């Protein structure tokens, strides 16, 4: 297979096509609206960062970015912490109803967000969490906690059971064993899990916009509002879009060597 050049070329072509819409967005974000409307240009002739500064200077946008990052972070931490013992239990023990419970958890991963939008709204309104970052962070647990359990269970299965037994013989109490020995062993798995939780919480926008109205608006909502408010400020929308891609790109760069392994378990 060493001699074949065609697959490489096809793949590079695919990557270029994949990058094209993203490039176009960056292109738009570096041009002013007058420039954009004046005609098609394959690259910005007079690149300007003016729209980025406009966003940085606007407290609404800055606040919205903070909100989005906060609920994603809270949700990721909750999901991973809660899922760790469960993943261990599912992999190491049999207990009454374990299979059914696992399936039920997975079904939540597949639950259409649109089904839950209205009841979530009422639930969080009733308990006074509506329009806070906690509402969104908790709502995203619906699919991220099962996801974390699923991925982590795969990584737990990669740790030989002998290690548990040896630690018990050496006199480690269970909590000490779990934190001091077991967690470092699946550190990669925790990283990969956190990455996927981050990803799914970060890209979810239907629930995030439904559960907030004024104080905890995520950037997605601010963006949707910017549509009508500014009479299609393409340049501004593009700049905001480019900014939302940065956290994802940063996170993915850190886990790039582990992604393939995370996928290898066939659990996403």
């Amino acid at each position, binding site marked *: 297979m060493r001699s074949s050049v065609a*697959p*490489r070329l*096809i*793949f590079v072509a*695919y*990557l270029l096509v994949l990058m*094209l819409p*993203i490039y*176009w967005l960056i292109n*738009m974000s570096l041009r002013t609206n007058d420039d954009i409307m004046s005609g098609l240009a394959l690259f910005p002739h007079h690149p300007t960062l003016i729209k980025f500064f406009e966003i940085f200077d606007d407290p609404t946008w800055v606040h919205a970015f903070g909100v989005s990052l906060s609920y994603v972070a809270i949700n990721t931490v909750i999901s991973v912490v*809660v899922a760790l*013992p*469960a993943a261990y*239990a599912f992999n*190491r*023990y049999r*207990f*009454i109803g374990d299979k059914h419970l696992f*399936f039920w958890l*997975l*079904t*939540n991963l597949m*639950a*259409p*967000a*649109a089904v839950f*939008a*209205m*009841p979530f*709204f009422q639930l969080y309104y009733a308990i006074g969490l509506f329009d806070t970052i906690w509402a969104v962070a*908790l*709502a995203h647990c619906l699919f991220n*906690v099962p996801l974390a359990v699923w991925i982590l269970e795969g990584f737990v299965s990669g740790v030989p059971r002998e290690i548990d037994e040896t630690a018990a013989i050496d006199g480690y109490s269970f909590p000490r064993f779990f934190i001091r020995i077991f967690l470092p062993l699946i550190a990669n798995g925790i990283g990969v899990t956190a990455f996927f939780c981050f*990803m799914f919480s*970060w*890209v*979810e*926008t*239907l629930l995030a916009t*439904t559960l907030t109205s004024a104080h905890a608006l995520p*950037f997605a909502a601010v963006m*949707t509002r910017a549509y009508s408010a500014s009479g299609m400020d*393409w340049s501004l*929308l*593009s700049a*905001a879009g480019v900014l*939302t*891609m940065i956290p*994802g*790109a940063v996170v*993915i760069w850190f886990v*790039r060597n582990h*992604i*393939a392994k*995370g*996928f*290898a*378990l*066939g659990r*996403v």
Partner: protein
Amino acid sequence: MIDKPINNRAWLFVLPVLAFVMFSSIIPAMTVVNYSIQDTLGENNFFWNGDAWFRDLLNPSTEIGARFNDALFRTLAFSFVCLAIEIPLGIAMALCVPRRGWAVGISLVIVALPMLIPGVVVGTMWQIFTREDIGLFGAALTGLGIHYNVTQDAVSAWVTIVVIDVWHWTPLVILLSYAGLRAIPDAYYQAARIDGASRWAVFVNIELPKLQKVLVIAALLRFMQTFMIYTEPFIVTGGGPGSATTFLSIDLDKIALGQVDLGNAASMSLVYYLITLTVCWVFFTIMNQLERRRDV
């Protein structure tokens, strides 16, 4: 698998997960069930309505029934088209990803990038990209003399949503297949080389069977995600033109949050949810069976 000890105290480990998921799953689901069997005359006065909402919904001759039927058919067709493109394309591209060297990391990062872009941004990006005045895609198609208008032409709108989904989510299939391919031991390839097997024979007899399990997962995830698609059509086409791209989620959102028609929305939610549950169960059964066959 068999030597796992039975320990019902393991429930304690699962309890936190249960609490969180129950809170965000069972309680909202019960609210939906509640609305689906009641009717209201306003002012929070609810009364028992039996299965009337469901009977309306499942009867295509009523207004809501026809609407649901159309949206369901549209969504299924959409899922099918997307799967038919993404799975083969994903496998093909996964075969082309470099296996070693510096290019691996960069390739994976680039491939995964679209998946990390929030739905709203993907929508906006493609809304710009497909406009014929300022978007490269729209301008190129129009320049080629193809009639293309997302907001007025149903075919254009459909093609656009499919293209967006293919662009956005084929990477998932690629990464899954790539990981599956990496797990094939080199010995298999060496044996094939000794036998003088063609590239195609290697693919059909070695790679494809080994990818089976990963592909089932890919198909499951892609089916579910396309079946619930919401944000992209919501932003790019708004469900239109007419109702050409009004998929189930969008229709549900219109009925529930737009018209606040609780009974119809709730019964629709439940039927929608039951369909996803059923499909999920079928896939899960297939997956377990594959696993069992592998264990033997």
